[in-house]
Each structure stands twice: as structure tokens, then as C-alpha cells.
């Protein structure tokens, strides 16, 4: 009996492996062409008044210039962790920011913990899901506050957003998302 179980188990394994030859089951996310992106409105943020955290993968920061008052709490928080935030002076007229200072992030040191986002009492700092930050030069990884002003809308390399479809026969495969 045990020998029979062994043989049938072996044949089942071989059959399930062979089925990959006949039915095309693909699991690979073909990265530079497609990428699974959640909704771009989902920024990692902390809203203390509503007691809510919106979750999401943590990537490049987004500084809201109409809310930041230059209180430096993000810099103070980061000084204990990775010393990646430095305040810089920005030209312009901001009603709520008399000293005209805004945070700038050094991504060579940032560990993407999100505690600076939690520390901001004015909900002016968020983290987007834009992660393509690699560069040839270490000094270019220091992003001035002006570069953090906008949420990047387009992904580089012509990446198309995709979604994941689970099919019991074909396995997991990725379908390009239809534009809404």
C-alpha cells in the first residue's frame, strides 16, 4: 500500500509539473512594462484628528507647501533615527510659514520608516508610492524641498499599471489596467 501511495504521489507530482508545458502559467510581473499600482490617491499619511492612518508602501515624500509651517518636528524626529531631513529656505510667500523653511530629504540616509509623517502635526508630510529613486551619483539623492512639492503622476520607463488576476488553471497573471 505504501509503495502504491509513493508511486501515485510521484506520478501526480510529475503530472503537475508537466502541465506547465501544456498550459501557459505565468507568474512573473514583467516589471518595466507593467507594475501593480494601488490607487494613486492612497498616500501613506497620518491624520490625528480623525485618528486614522492610511496605509500604503512608503516611498518618496510629498510636502504640502500650503500646510507646512516650518516647525522642524520632522527634522527633530529624524535626527534620532537616520538624520536624513534637513530644513532649507525656499523663496516665496507663504502665509503660514514665516521663516520660509521646508524639509528636504537625503535618500542616501532615509530608511523610509514613516515616523516623520507621524510627527507632523499639520498633516503636511506624506509618503507616496513612487520608489524609482536610484541614481548614479550619491549627491543627487539629496532632494530639495522643491522636488518634493508634487506627487509624481507618471512612472518612468513607460510603466503601465496592472492588476493581479488569480486563475486556478492559469495561475497568477497580470493584466494591464484599463484607464478609467
Amino acid at each position, binding site marked *: 500500500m505504501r509503495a502504491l501511495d509513493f508511486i501515485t504521489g510521484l506520478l501526480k507530482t510529475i503530472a503537475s509539473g508537466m502541465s506547465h508545458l501544456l498550459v501557459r502559467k505565468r507568474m512573473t510581473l514583467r516589471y518595466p512594462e507593467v507594475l501593480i499600482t494601488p490607487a494613486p490617491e492612497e498616500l501613506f499619511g497620518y491624520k490625528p484628528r480623525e485618528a486614522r492612518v492610511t496605509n500604503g508602501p512608503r516611498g518618496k515624500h510629498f510636502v504640502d507647501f500650503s500646510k507646512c509651517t516650518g516647525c522642524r518636528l520632522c527634522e527633530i524626529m529624524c535626527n534620532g533615527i537616520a538624520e536624513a531631513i534637513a530644513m532649507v529656505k525656499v523663496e516665496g510667500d507663504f502665509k503660514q510659514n514665516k521663516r520660509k523653511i521646508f524639509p528636504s530629504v537625503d535618500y542616501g540616509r532615509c530608511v523610509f520608516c514613516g515616523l516623520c509623517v507621524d510627527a507632523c502635526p499639520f498633516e503636511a508630510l506624506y509618503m507616496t508610492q513612487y520608489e524609482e529613486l536610484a541614481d548614479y551619483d*550619491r549627491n543627487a539623492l539629496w532632494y530639495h524641498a522643491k522636488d518634493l512639492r508634487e506627487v509624481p503622476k507618471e512612472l518612468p520607463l513607460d510603466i503601465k499599471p496592472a492588476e493581479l488576476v488569480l486563475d486556478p488553471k492559469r495561475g497568477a497573471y497580470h493584466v494591464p489596467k484599463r484607464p478609467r
Partner: protein
Amino acid sequence: MSASGRSKASISFPFGGGGAAAFVGKLREVLIKNVASPLGYVINWGRLYSLWPVHLETACCSVELGAAAGARWDMERFGVLEAFGSLRQCDLLIVLGTVTRKMMKRLRVVWEQMPEPKWCVAVGACSISGGLYTDSYNVVQGVDMEIPVDVYVPGCPPSPRQMLYGILLLQNKIVNSDVMARPKRIPSKSEARLI
């Protein structure tokens, strides 16, 4: 350098002759444009689509490299295989994780044992600048103190998506690089004491 500034050839002839020098200069240009550049392009194409990394995994970022080599984010599509015998057959050093001073000596030895042409990718905040452990007495603040780094991939740890983007950037750099260029060399600390 010809004394009379008449020819543009960079080869100087001891016996002069404006015609000969100009002809050789033109021949050099024609050869570079029609033979050396396409040949260099083909050589670079062969190099960039088969970058084999050394298995040097110091800390947590190496798990993300393992994920990048898995089925979902497949590194093999880009030619980055993990199939080789020893580090003398590799051309890519991916520095993953925190590098202490004790490990830096060994890392330098590994880098010097790899034959040319070779490239280095610094992955993670710890190898770019010391990262979370910047203030530590034993951590090297950035691997580019001793090893010339080509691409920096920030993150802690960077997701496989970012690592693949870093590899794409490296491939872009290799396509545009000069085949006959001399490699950069940073003298190690023991040499620096002798200079």
C-alpha cells in the same frame, strides 16, 4: 603636439610631412567610426545582458535580492543569474547591507579579486551612507570610501522593484560607456599610508 598647428592628428611624426599626418588622422577617425564604435557597441551589449553578481550578502537587503531573483520579480530576464563557480567569474558586486570595518577589509579583497570589467551597485541606505547606523563607531559610512560605486539604490530595504530599476540604470550606463576606458581605482587605506 606638432609645432606648426596645421594637422589635427594626435599622433606626432618625428619626420614631419603634413600629408602623412593628415592621412593617418583621417584614417583613425574613419576606423573609429566604422570599426571601433560598432565593435565597442557589440562588446558592451554582450556585457550588459549578462551581469553575474557575487554572492556577498552582509545583512537584511540580501533577502530582497532573493525576492528579486524569485518568480514574481525575475532578475534572470535581465541576465543577472546566480549561477557561477567562484567570484573570479563574476562581473557585478552588489553590496547588500551594513558593512563594518572588519568586513570592509574582506570586501576590498573580494573587489580586487574580481577581474575587469566589473561594476558595483550599492544597495540600501547602509551601504550608501551608513544608513541607520551612521553614528556607530564600527560602521563604514558608505562603501564608496573604498570601492568605486556605479549605481546607488536607496531604500531600507529597497523593494525588488527598485533593485530592478537600479539594474536597468546600470545597463544604461554600460551601453554608453567607452570600451577602452581605464578603470577607476581608489587606493585602499593600507596603500594610502604608503603614499
